[in-house]
C-alpha cells in the first residue's frame, strides 16, 4: 500500500497544488493574477520533479490493478507537464492582452492536467473513464469562459453535448466488455480474451464503442464535427491548450485500451482504425483547403494529423506505437508554436484569426515569418523539419508491418495537405501586407516563441534523442 501511494505522489502533488492555486486566487486582489500564474507554473514544475524523483524504473501496477506506472506513462506525463507549462505561458500573455484573465483558467487547467495524468496511468476502464471525464469537464468550462462571446458559448455547448454523447458511447462499450469478460481491469480483460471462452462477437461489439469514444476525444473523422467549431469558437488560449497536451493523453488512452487491454483483437481494431485514419486524412486535408479562418484551418489539419497518428497504432508493433508517440509529441510542439504565432499577431481589438492577417508578414517582421515558415513546412512534413520525421516514423513502421497500400494513401493525402500550408507561406512571403503596424508582444513572448520555432528545426536536424525516448517508452 505504501508503494502504491509513492507511485501517485506526482498526482497528489498536482491535486494539492491545484487546490492551493484556487485558494491563492480567491485571496489575491491583483487584476493581473500574477501570483496565481506563478504558483500554477510552480505546481507544474513540482509535479515534473516529483514525477522523475518518485517514478520507479520498472513498471508497477498499483491500487488493485487500477493504476500503472511504466516508462510510457512517466514519459508522457513529463511531456504533458512540460507542454502545459509553455501553453500556460502563451495563455497568460493572451489572456492579459485580451482582458480575459481569470484565476479559474489556471485552476481548471491544472485539473485538466490531473485528468490527463490519470488517463495516462489508468489501467482499469473505470479509472480511464474517470481521468477522461475530469479532463473533459475542465475543458468544457474553459471553452465557455469567455461568457459574452456567442461563438464561445456555442462552441462550449456543442463540445459538451457531443462530448457527453461520446462518453456515453464509451461507457456503453465498457459495459459490453464487462459483460463478456467479467472485469474492467486491463490485464484481466486480456487474460479473459486469451482464455478463448469469451464470445468474440460481443467483445468486438463493445470494442467498436470504445474506439468511437477514443476517436471522438482525439477528433478523428467521422467523429470530428466538434473540432472545427470548438477550435474556432474558443478563446485562442483554450484552443491552444486543447490542441496540445490532451492529445497526448488521448493517445495514452488509445494505447491503454487497444494495446494493453484488447491486443488479442488486434486484427479487428487495425481494420477499424484504418478506416478512421483514411477518412481523417481525407476529410481533414481536403476540407482544410476551403477554410479562410486560420483556427478553423488548423482544426481540420488536426483531424488529418490524428489520421497519421493512427497509422502508427495500426502498425501494431512496439516501434509503431513509439512512432505514434513521436508523432503526437511533435504535433503538440508544432501546434503550440502555431497558436503561439496567432497570439503573437493578435492585437487587443482584433485577433489574427483570418488567413489574411498573415499577409506580408515577412515584410512586417521577417524573423517571425521565418518561424511560421518552419512551423508550416514542418506541419506539411517537409524535411528537415520535425514534422517530416514524425510522418517518416509512422510510415516506416506501417510499411514494416506490411501495410504498404495504406502508406501510399497516407502520402497521397499529405500532398493535398501541403497545399494549404503553402498558402500561408505564400501569404507571408509573396503578398504585400495590408497594414504595416509593428508586432506588439512582450519580450518573453518573443523569446519563448523563438525557442519553440527553433526546436522544430533543431529536433528536425537531430531527431535521434526524441526517437530514442519514444522507443524506450515501448521497449518494456
Amino acid at each position, binding site marked *: 500500500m505504501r508503494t502504491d501511494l509513492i507511485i501517485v505522489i506526482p498526482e497528489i502533488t498536482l491535486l494539492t497544488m491545484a487546490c492551493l492555486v484556487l485558494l491563492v486566487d480567491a485571496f489575491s486582489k491583483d487584476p493581473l493574477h500574477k501570483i496565481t500564474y506563478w504558483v500554477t507554473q510552480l505546481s507544474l514544475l513540482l509535479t515534473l520533479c516529483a514525477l522523475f524523483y518518485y517514478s520507479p524504473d520498472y513498471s508497477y501496477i498499483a491500487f488493485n490493478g487500477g493504476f500503472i506506472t511504466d516508462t510510457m506513462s512517466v514519459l508522457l506525463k513529463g511531456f504533458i507537464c512540460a507542454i502545459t507549462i509553455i501553453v500556460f505561458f502563451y495563455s497568460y500573455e493572451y489572456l492579459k492582452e485580451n482582458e480575459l484573465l481569470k484565476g479559474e483558467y489556471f485552476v481548471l487547467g491544472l485539473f485538466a492536467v490531473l485528468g490527463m495524468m490519470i488517463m495516462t496511468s489508468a489501467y482499469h476502464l473505470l479509472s480511464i473513464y474517470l481521468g477522461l471525464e475530469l479532463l473533459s469537464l475542465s475543458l468544457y468550462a474553459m471553452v465557455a469562459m469567455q461568457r459574452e462571446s456567442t461563438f464561445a458559448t456555442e462552441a462550449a455547448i456543442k463540445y459538451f453535448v457531443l462530448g457527453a454523447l461520446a462518453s456515453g458511447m464509451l461507457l456503453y462499450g465498457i459495459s459490453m466488455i464487462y459483460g463478456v469478460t467479467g472485469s474492467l481491469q486491463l490485464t484481466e480483460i486480456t487474460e479473459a480474451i486469451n482464455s478463448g471462452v469469451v464470445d468474440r462477437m460481443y467483445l468486438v461489439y463493445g470494442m467498436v464503442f470504445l474506439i468511437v469514444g477514443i476517436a471522438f476525444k482525439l477528433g478523428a473523422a467521422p467523429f470530428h464535427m466538434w473540432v472545427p467549431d470548438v477550435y474556432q469558437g474558443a478563446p485562442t488560449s483554450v484552443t491552444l491548450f486543447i490542441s496540445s497536451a490532451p492529445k497526448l493523453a488521448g493517445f495514452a488512452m488509445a494505447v491503454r485500451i487497444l494495446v494493453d487491454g484488447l491486443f488479442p483483437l488486434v486484427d479487428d481494431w487495425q481494420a477499424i482504425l484504418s478506416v478512421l485514419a483514411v477518412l481523417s486524412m481525407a476529410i481533414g486535408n481536403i476540407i482544410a483547403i476551403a477554410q479562410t479562418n486560420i483556427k478553423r484551418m488548423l482544426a481540420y489539419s488536426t483531424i488529418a494529423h490524428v489520421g497519421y497518428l493512427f497509422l502508427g497504432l495500426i502498425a501494431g508493433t512496439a516501434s509503431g506505437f513509439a512512432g505514434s508517440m513521436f508523432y503526437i509529441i511533435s504535433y503538440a510542439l508544432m501546434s503550440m508554436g502555431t497558436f503561439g504565432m496567432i497570439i503573437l499577431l493578435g492585437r487587443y481589438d482584433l485577433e489574427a484569426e483570418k488567413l489574411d492577417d498573415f499577409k506580408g508578414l515577412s515584410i512586417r517582421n521577417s524573423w517571425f515569418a521565418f518561424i511560421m515558415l518552419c512551423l508550416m513546412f514542418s506541419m506539411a512534413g517537409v*524535411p528537415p523539419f520535425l514534422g517530416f520525421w514524425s510522418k517518416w516514423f509512422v510510415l516506416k513502421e506501417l*510499411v514494416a508491418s506490411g501495410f504498404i497500400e495504406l*502508406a501510399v494513401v497516407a502520402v497521397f493525402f499529405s500532398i493535398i495537405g501541403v497545399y494549404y500550408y503553402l*498558402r500561408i507561406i505564400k501569404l507571408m512571403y509573396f503578398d504585400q501586407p495590408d497594414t504595416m503596424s509593428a508586432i506588439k508582444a512582450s519580450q518573453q513572448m518573443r523569446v519563448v516563441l523563438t525557442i519553440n520555432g527553433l526546436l522544430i528545426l533543431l529536433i528536425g536536424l537531430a531527431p535521434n534523442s526524441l*526517437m530514442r525516448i519514444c522507443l524506450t517508452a515501448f521497449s518494456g
Partner: protein
Amino acid sequence: MFLDNLPILSMLIWVPILGGIWTLIISDQQERIVKHFSLFITAITFLLSAVLYYQFDNSFSGMQFIEEFYWIEAFGIKYHLGVDGIALPLIMLTTFTTVLVVLAAWEVIDENISYYMCAFLVLTGLMNGVFVALDSILFYVFWESMLIPMFLIIGIWGGPNRVYATIKFFLYTFLGSVFMLVALLYLYSVTGSFNIQALHEVPLELTAQKLIFIAFFLAFAVKIPMWPVHTWLPDAHVEAPTGGSVILAAIMLKMGGYGFLRFSLPIAPDASLFFGNTMIVLSLIAIVYIGFVALVQEDMKKLIAYSSISHMGFVTLGFFIPFGIFAATNSSAGAVMGMEGAMMQMISHGFISAAMFLCVGVMYERLHSRMIKDYGGVVNSMPCFAAFMMLFAMANSGLPGTSGFVGEFLVILSSFKVSFWIAFTAALTLILGAAYTLWMYKRVIFGEAIREEVSDLKDIDAREGFILFLLASVVLLFGVWPAPVFDVMHVSVQQLIEHISQTKLL
C-alpha cells in the same frame, strides 16, 4: 598535403549553407558586402570542388572521399557521403553555375538582396548534398528540403504569375518524391538498411521491382521532367527570376537524371529492362513532340524551357538504351557509350541552358519583355551580345564543335545498336533543335530594329560579358575536348552498366 584530410564533401554542403545564413546577418543595409561575400562563398565552393576533381582517382569505380558516421542511430541512418564518377561532374556543374548565378544577380536584384543570396547559397549546399549523399534518407532530406529555397526564389522574385507557378512546382515535385519515400521505406523493411550501396545489392522479386521502379519513376521523371509530367517546368521557368531559371535548368533537372542512375537502374534493373521500351518511347515523344511544341512558342523563356525538356529526352533515352541493347543483342557492347552520352548531355545542357537563360535575362533586364515579337534587330545595337548568343544557339541545336553535339551524337550512335528507327527519330532533334533555336535567334537578333527601344539598347557590360565568356569557353572546350568529363566518369559508368546487366531476381 593539408588538403588530404579535409572533410571536403561536408564542406561543399555546409560552407554555402552557413555562408547563406551569414548573408542574412550582414543584412540588406550593406548591399555591396552581401554581394561580395556571396561571390566569395561561391568561389570558395567552386575551388573546393576543383580540389575534389584534382584529387579524384579516375581509375577507381567505387565511392571516394567517404565520410560516415551515425546521424540517427536509433534506426541506423548515417550521415554518409561519398562521390563517384557519376556525381563528380554534376557537383562541378553545380558549383560552377552558382558562381554565375551570383554574378548574374549583381545589378538585377534590387530588393531583399541578402535573402536572395541566402536562398541561393543554401540551395547550393543542399544540391551538393543530393549529389554526395550515400544514405537514402539523407538523400531524401536533401532532395526535399531543396524545394524550400526554390519555392521562395520563384515566389518572391518571380514574374507576375509566380504564385501559381511556384505552388505548381512544389506540389508536382513533392507528389513524385513522397512515393519514392514509400519505396525507400519498403526497401528498408526488406534489407534493414538505408545505405544506397547496400540497396544496390539486394535481390528483389520482379513485382516488387516494378512497383519500386514506378515509385522512383514518379520522383525522377517529374524532376527531369519527362513527357507527360513536364507541365510544371514551362510555368516555373517563365516565372522564375533569371538566376532561378538557370539553377532549375542547369542543375535541378539533372537531379532527376542522377536519381535514375543512383536509384532506379541499379536497384531495379529487371524492372528497368521490363519498362525499358516504354521509357525509350516516352523519351522519343519528349524529343520530337516537345521539339514541335518549342517551335511555336512566343515567349523566349518558354521556348528554352521546352527545348530543355526535349534535350532531357536524350538523357533518359541514353539511360534506357542500354536495356534496349541488352534485349536486342544480348551483350553490353555500346551500352557504355549511350550512358556516357547521356551524362555528357546532362553536363553540356547544364552549361548551354544556363547560357540561354542568361542571354534572355540580359535582354529582359533592358526591355522587360520576354516576347519574341518585341525584339528584332538586336544585333544592330548589341553586336557582342549577338555573337555570344549565336554560339549558344548553335550549341543548343547541337552543332559539332560545341558540347551540345557530343552527348547527342553518342546517344544516337548507341541507339543504332537497338534499332535504326530509334536512332532516326532521335536524330530528328538535330533538325528540330536547329529550327526552333535558330528561328528564334533570327527573329530576335536579326532584321531591322522595328522598335525604337531596341535600337537604343546598350551592349553587354564587362560583368555580363565575363559570365557569357566563361560559359562560351566551357561550351567550346567540351565541344572539342570532352575528355575531362569522360575520364572522370568512365570507370563508374562501366561498373554501373556491368551491375545493371545482371539480373537481381531471386
